[in-house]
């Protein structure tokens, strides 16, 4: 049997595909607690990443006409911004329960195979027992996965592709 096909970079011109409405997961009329999830992406030189494709996927909440999937381009300052529904807890493996989270993939020029991560939400009681968060011992790295509320309903989670200057920790990326 053949192995899975090789990945290649999305390159700088993927915006030919872009439909800006995809950044709003409530556009088909899904009803629920609406939130904004935003952040700024930087590289190992602290420079904003201005040509990335950010994708999110969430299996929760289960709402009618909710695609669960969104795509957003980073802008000229490296910002991405989604409108979505606040996820709830998600069943885990065995008896585990996962804290509310969004799955995240980053594609860009210079990224050969999409970088996987997650976005959790500060203040959730389940964060203390979430299997992935518990597996990351370094508190600063663990915090790189957790969005903070900047104003009510707006959550911010910056992304650092590579640690380096300016001291900000590298985002935790996952091997799926």
């Amino acid at each position, binding site marked *: 049997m053949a192995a899975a096909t090789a990945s290649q970079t*999305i390159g700088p011109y993927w915006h*030919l595909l872009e439909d800006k409405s995809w950044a709003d997961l409530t556009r088909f009329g899904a009803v629920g607690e609406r939130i904004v999830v935003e952040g700024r992406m930087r590289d190992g030189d602290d420079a904003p990443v201005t040509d990335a494709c950010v994708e999110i996927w969430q299996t929760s909440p289960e709402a009618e006409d909710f695609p669960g999937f969104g795509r957003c381009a980073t802008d000229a300052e490296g910002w991405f911004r989604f409108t979505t529904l606040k996820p709830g807890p998600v069943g885990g493996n065995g008896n585990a329960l996962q804290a509310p989270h969004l799955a995240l993939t980053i594609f860009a020029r210079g990224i*050969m195979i999409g970088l*996987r991560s997650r976005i959790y939400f500060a203040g959730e009681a389940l964060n203390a027992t979430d299997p992935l968060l518990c597996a990351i011992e370094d508190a600063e790295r663990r915090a790189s996965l957790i969005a903070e509320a900047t104003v009510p309903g707006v959550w911010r989670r910056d992304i650092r*592709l*590579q640690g380096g200057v300016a001291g900000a920790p590298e985002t935790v990326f*996952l091997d799926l």
Partner: protein
Amino acid sequence: MSTADRDTTPFRPYAPGTQPPNDAPSYRSTGKRHPGAALVALPHTVTERQGPRFDPRRFPPLLDLSTACGGKALGERIIVSGRVTDEDGRAVARTMIEIWQANASGRYDHPGDQHDAPLDPAFHGAGRVFTDDEGWYQFTTIKPGSYPWRNHHNAWRPNHIHYSYFGPGFATRLITQMYFPGDPLLELDPIFLSIPDRTARERLIARFDLETTAPEWALGYRFDVVLRGRGATPMEG
């Protein structure tokens, strides 16, 4: 085990050598964009085992890039077809495929592309298709031209079409590029060469296909893609 939408079996890890590393020094842009720390292993949960579904009624197919802007795009018209399966050879049915590419002169209809080659008002370069029940897809386009990039002195990308696949789970998401047989630029291209395993690399090269070549009209190329298969047993729990 079922192959239904709600299958909860995890996907298999990638076979060694078949995927490019994110730290690929000969492709300069990877320098400041690859993680320095080791990736953290995440056993697949329901989040990774399931994935988005796209309904063609909301995401309408665009099957002919050569006529999508009205009129006929300049260049060599081609028909690209193929099959999407998983690592066990099972069809990946009704999955969405996105396509984008440069025009016949090697220029993208994109503000970032400043290559001194003509734009073609009859060609935009974006398409969308869905596989059928057996995993087959087909679309019509024009053969994209080569274009220069600034990675190193006199660097030119081989002719290629960009592809985006979803498959059954979030973990099967794939972005790749399809190349053309006999292209002398392939053996000079750091992006193509970044895949360590030669066989895995060469599977990104479409093959000329007389069977789908339409007489008096267009050459046919065949490009098959394999997405990750479900593991035989769940990793835990």
